[in-house]
């Protein structure tokens, strides 16, 4: 390959990576956390008990509850508890006052064993990370646009990185620690190359998910500008019959679960929607929970009559283009993953995050070398240093602050979910101020140490503020609760190790040795 082209790609990789690196780090870290969104939500709402009861029992309880409380509603939506989501949630929409208007929704959580209402503390839970991952806490549609652009830049950075990397196969197994800049570059290359299939899959699929925003031209052309027609083709909404006005009792819903299973090759319903309950025209839509296959299918459902139990409709088999898009969607979200595969997804996500982080460190490290003698950094490098610290260790502190806020804020506080999110951003902002004030290695060490302390003490915090401490959760087999505590403890230990390493590396005799070794590297890496 021509050297000029490779150099151009190296330039592109360097600058695309720097400008979007901080944002991409946040997107990847929160996205990685979102793989455990339900487990995080479970930890953040310890009042909602984890039970294992047959789905049929939960559905019967939900029906009894709704017949008592919401007999006149125009629609019921029942979210059944699954392996990861312990809550049985019921929502109902009151009949609209005027035709054409949308009725109000009410939501309640039920104990799937007793059918009694449970009041979990008000929180966004894991949903916060999931939403932040692609909306960046910005008003619609700006956050989505920004994350779409970030995904495109990520794709550019990956491709240009592959072209820039001269010895992919020769250096495939190479990682040389304790050698300063060289080790950072080795680490960046190792996580980049070894986990490359994941990086490419996750980045490309994000573009497919955002397809309607990124490439509306093809849709507008095919549907002659009628975007709504495209969406109704993609998501064929169940055409619900109008209310007849003649009351007719609703069938027991639980047996319909088995009938729905017969229509699907595997898996079962995750959501049950009842339109016009108690009317002759009642219909029951059972939506598949989508955990039995890799290819995601949008709105896969069967509809039965709520009075006779007759099959009314079934979503047709996926077309090939939809299956292709669905497979990217499915792979990105990983909803099908069992606990082991979910952990592997999580580790891959961390590897992507680490790749971005090491890249940012290398960018700065290479340029700092030139100013090593004078010890004074020009303004732009100082800025990059501060942003590096705040975007990496600062974000980790912010995540810990979010978890802490969930346990420390009073349960009946007004606008509680908002204050949890505020704590996240306040902690992040403070870490930026701290990084600007302290700068350099000192800031890294202090922030990493603080993050280590906050994470490692999460199990203790949980034990002090709730009854669901590790002894209890392990004994009762509440793996999501125990896993969260243990994962926090593990993260705390890792962060502590990183802080210590950072502090040791800062001692003068070691940096002196590193500096000598990394001089040839500087020429090599360019």
């Amino acid at each position, binding site marked *: 390959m021509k050297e000029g082209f490779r150099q151009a790609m190296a330039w592109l990789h360097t600058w695309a990576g720097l400008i979007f690196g901080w944002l991409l780090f946040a997107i990847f870290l929160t996205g990685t956390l979102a793989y455990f969104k339900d487990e995080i939500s479970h930890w953040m709402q310890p009042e909602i008990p984890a039970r294992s009861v047959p789905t049929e029992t939960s559905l019967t309880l939900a029906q009894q509850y709704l017949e008592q409380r919401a007999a006149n509603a125009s629609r019921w939506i029942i979210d059944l508890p699954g392996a990861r989501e312990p809550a049985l949630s019921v929502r109902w929409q009151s009949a609209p006052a005027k035709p054409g208007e949308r009725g109000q929704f009410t939501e309640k959580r039920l104990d799937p064993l007793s059918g009694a209402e449970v009041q979990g503390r008000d929180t966004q839970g894991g949903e916060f990370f999931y939403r932040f991952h692609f909306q960046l806490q910005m008003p619609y549609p700006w956050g989505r646009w920004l994350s779409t652009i970030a995904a495109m830049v990520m794709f550019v950075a990956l491709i240009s990185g592959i072209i820039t990397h001269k010895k992919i196969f020769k250096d495939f*197994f190479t990682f040389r620690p304790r050698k300063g800049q060289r080790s950072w570059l080795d680490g960046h290359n190792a996580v980049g190359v*070894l*986990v490359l299939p994941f990086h490419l899959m996750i980045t490309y699929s994000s573009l497919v998910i955002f397809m309607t925003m990124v490439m509306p031209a093809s849709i507008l052309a095919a549907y002659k500008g009628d975007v709504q027609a495209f969406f109704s083709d993609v998501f064929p909404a169940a055409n619900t019959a109008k209310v007849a006005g003649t009351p007719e009792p609703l069938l027991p819903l639980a047996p319909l679960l088995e009938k729905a299973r017969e229509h699907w090759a595997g898996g079962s319903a995750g959501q049950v929607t009842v339109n016009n309950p108690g009317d002759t025209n009642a219909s029951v839509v059972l939506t598949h929970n989508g955990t039995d296959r*890799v290819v995601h299918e949008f709105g896969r459902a069967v509809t039965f009559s709520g009075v006779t139990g007759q099959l009314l409709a079934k979503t047709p088999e996926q077309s090939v283009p939809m299956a292709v898009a669905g497979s990217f969607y499915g792979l990105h979200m990983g909803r099908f993953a069992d606990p082991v*595969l979910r952990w592997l997804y999580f580790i*891959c996500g961390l590897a992507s995050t680490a790749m971005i982080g090491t890249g940012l460190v290398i960018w700065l490290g290479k340029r700092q070398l030139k100013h090593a003698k004078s010890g004074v950094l020009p303004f732009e490098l100082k800025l990059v240093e501060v942003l590096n610290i705040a975007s990496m260790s600062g974000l980790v502190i912010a995540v810990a602050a979010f978890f802490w806020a969930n346990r420390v804020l009073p349960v009946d506080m007004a606008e509680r979910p908002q204050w949890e999110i505020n704590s996240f951003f306040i902690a992040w902002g403070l870490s930026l101020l701290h990084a600007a004030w302290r700068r350099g290695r000192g800031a890294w060490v202090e922030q990493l140490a603080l993050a280590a302390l906050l994470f490692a003490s999460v199990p203790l915090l949980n034990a002090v503020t709730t009854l669901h401490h590790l002894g209890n959760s392990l004994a009762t087999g509440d793996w999501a609760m125990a896993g969260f505590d243990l994962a926090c403890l593990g993260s705390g230990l890792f962060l502590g190790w990183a802080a210590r390493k950072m502090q040791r590396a800062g001692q003068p005799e070691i940096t002196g040795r590193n500096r000598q070794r990394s001089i040839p590297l500087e020429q090599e890496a360019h």
Partner: protein
Amino acid sequence: MLLAGLLCYGGFTALCLSMDRHHAELLGRKASIAERRRFKWAGWLLLGMSLWAAVSVAGWAFGLVQWCAVLMLSVLLLVMLMPYRRRMALSLAALSLLASPIAAYAVL
């Protein structure tokens, strides 16, 4: 997924040993050309077998996803272990090759 993971780890270790620099680093001596060729064959064979193991246990859709996951993370583990715990990296490979027939017997 366990069987595929064991085979992947063994396969990558063999491929690693087929390279001059890593062979010397791990085993402390130079490899002959015939030796390196044998390691290379063994490595690719084991990786191929791991794909077959993953797909035959979990089907194409799940099998391929699981295979990609263990493929990436087994080699990541190997590369991170090598500089710190050379012996452990090697004995883990030996262990995974020894354990794989048992795992195969359990799942196939």
